[in-house]
């Protein structure tokens, strides 16, 4: 049975190549859609985890990092550092700004840091050493053609780009400045009529004594500093991922479902065309006493063989396209190879494809063995 199915696959090489590329493209489309969704979650997670804190302090009631406003009273820093087990509470401030050049606007999340929380993946240039300097995400640099050494205006304040990092989340590039830069930005530019209205301290990245118990210190901080909440980086990252899912899940779920339907139809079409083309061969096999079950098995093996051939093609195609997407638009990250999701996607595709392969099987069932003796 296997041999028969295999020989069918090899019968017309051009057709098999076309089939493999068509099926591979369907797999690639599905993998890219799933990878796009997973990439968003991954970026949301990493942007928190890359701040490398043992615990993260937020404004009381705030349990997210992205796209929320957290404002902690500045005095709270000393109170947090006074808790036993805390070595340092490194301040971080998040300021959403709209970068505008030549009327092309992009929302940018500016992270202000002092000692911890700076850019974690600099790919060009260096870290900030003065208040006039800024490190920006690669997507922003690519979109506006900015290189290290160029000016970067936030409202009317001029920063000098000294580094390019790879940090974006929720399709939003990040930029990094230090506190001198933030104060200069607020004071020298026209941004703030009243500094008190701006969050000067959004989060604290807590550095713990290695011997300290994380949960216990978190409880102590919340007990002694009522204006804040304490969250582990993992939990904060998960909260952001969950928020991301609220946005992406329904959309991407539907798009991926359409992808599976396309896969099912393409496999069905391929098998139908194949069966129609070989209808006489099937009639001969029926006349020779092959049962419908065995012929059905041939179709099933043949479609499975096709899928086995096309999965690597599809994966390679998806990899190529994802590299292209990330090069063209670095704000998007296509996460293809999350092992669980990858296998889950391929398995689901396999199931849909097998269902598709079964669609034309009725044609074989209806084939009259007499057809084998006609028109010879």
């Amino acid at each position: 049975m296997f041999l028969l199915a295999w020989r069918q696959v090899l019968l017309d090489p051009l057709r098999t190549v076309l089939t493999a590329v068509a099926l591979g493209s369907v797999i690639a489309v599905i993998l890219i859609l799933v990878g796009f969704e997973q990439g968003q979650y991954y970026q949301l997670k990493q942007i928190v985890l890359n701040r490398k804190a043992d615990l993260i302090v937020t404004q009381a009631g705030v349990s997210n990092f992205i796209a929320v406003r957290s404002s902690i009273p500045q005095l709270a820093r000393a109170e947090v550092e006074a808790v036993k087990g805390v070595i340092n509470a490194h301040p971080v401030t998040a300021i959403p700004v709209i970068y505008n050049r030549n009327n092309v606007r992009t929302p940018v999340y500016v992270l202000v840091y002092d000692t911890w929380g700076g850019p974690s993946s600099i790919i060009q240039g260096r870290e900030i050493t003065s208040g006039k300097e800024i490190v920006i995400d690669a997507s922003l640099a690519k979109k506006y053609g900015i290189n290290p050494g160029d000016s970067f205006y936030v409202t009317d304040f001029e920063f000098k780009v000294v580094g390019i990092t790879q940090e974006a989340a929720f399709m939003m590039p990040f930029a990094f400045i230090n506190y001198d830069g933030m104060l200069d930005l607020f004071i020298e530019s026209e941004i703030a009529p009243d500094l008190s209205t701006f969050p000067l301290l959004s989060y604290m990245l807590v550095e713990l004594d290695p011997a300290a118990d994380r949960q216990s210190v978190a409880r102590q901080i919340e007990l002694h500093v009522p204006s804040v909440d304490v969250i582990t980086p993992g939990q904060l990252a998960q909260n952001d991922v969950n928020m991301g899912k609220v946005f992406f899940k329904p959309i991407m779920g539907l798009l991926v479902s359409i992808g599976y339907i396309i896969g099912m139809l393409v496999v069905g079409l391929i098998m139908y065309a194949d069966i129609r083309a070989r209808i006489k061969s099937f009639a001969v096999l029926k006349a020779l006493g092959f049962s419908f079950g065995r012929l059905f098995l041939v179709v099933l093996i043949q479609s499975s063989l096709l899928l086995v051939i096309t999965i690597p093609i599809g994966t390679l195609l998806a990899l190529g396209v994802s590299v292209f997407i990330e090069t063209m638009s670095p704000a998007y990250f296509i996460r293809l190879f999350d092992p669980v999701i990858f296998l889950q996607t391929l398995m689901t595709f396999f199931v849909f494809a097998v269902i598709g392969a079964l669609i034309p099987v009725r044609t074989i069932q209806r084939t009259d063995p007499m057809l084998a003796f006609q028109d010879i």
Partner: protein
Amino acid sequence: MFKWTWKSLSSQRGTLAGSALGIAFTFILVIFFDAVWRGESVQIVSYPDHVKPDVWVMQSGVGNMHMAMSFVWDWKADQIAKMPGVKRVTPILYMTSVVSAGKHRMFAFIVGLLPDAKRAGPWKLTAGRHIGNPQEAVIPDVFSKITGIGIGDQLRIVDKSFTVVGLSSGTYSSANSVLFVPFADLEEILSSSGTYSYLLVDAKEGTDPNDLAKRIRDQVEKVNALTQKEFVSNDLSMAKQMGVGIIVIMTAICSALAALIVGFTSYSLVIRRRREIAIIKALGIGNDKILISVIVQSGILTFIGFIMAMLFALFVMPAVPLLLPQLTLAVSTPALFQIGLIALVVAVLGALIPAWFVSRLDPATAFHI
């Protein structure tokens, strides 16, 4: 030749239907992707688009609302209110945050309204009433439908609790829903006083909004003033830009896939009829006519797929939000035309391989048994 093409296609109804459906779904994927992005972009400007003041006033350096932060001193609102041509100034406070209600969370634009500022509030209530007391909120009706959070229920914004008193229509978006709360409560959350985020300026009849915006920019220190059209356009173009790259790439991939399906189907049909084609060639019909027939075949397939996709976009897609209310889909005519153009390219590309096969087919094949 055309008759022969049509006959060879219609004799393979299963193949025709399968491939047309496959092509249709690849087009649907592109249309859907575009519609989702466009829908979300449109929803992002839903608030400014509906409250429609003549001029928006904000902090200098700010030119939009989505993801922006703006603070304007309260006395500047009084100054603008006294300017000639100004009918009314309605200040709002604004922030983006995560709203939690039970186990549900959503990103939201939160608009803080002064007691007499209904003009900047929800434009259509489907249940309940406008906010009137402290710690009351009006939430999107879709959010209520999805989560079951309704009138009388509690929700939290940062560390403050609010009671839902009304459900508004047209304010939900997966990216940013619009919630309305009392100004004083939002002021407390923001730890701000004496400042507004945006001023909605209504002009007196006969006043040119462009002229008024310019006068405000010139006469009021450190503010930006934009007409409604400019303000909405800034937000809309920014939202659209964020998705342009991925939409273009997805369109390219899906179009390539559609071309492959067309190519596969045309090639299969040509292979099945190779003896007929060989006979036609042996009878002296030129390659050009046969090639045209192959292109017509691809064209018919693509056209049927395109029509199916259009029917889906026009009749099925509008019903999708009934099943998934959190989705806002905006099918645009330019996007459909774009798919039409892509379909043309797909048909030609899909015909290339079978055309190549046909051109190499030996007429002697007609006499092989």
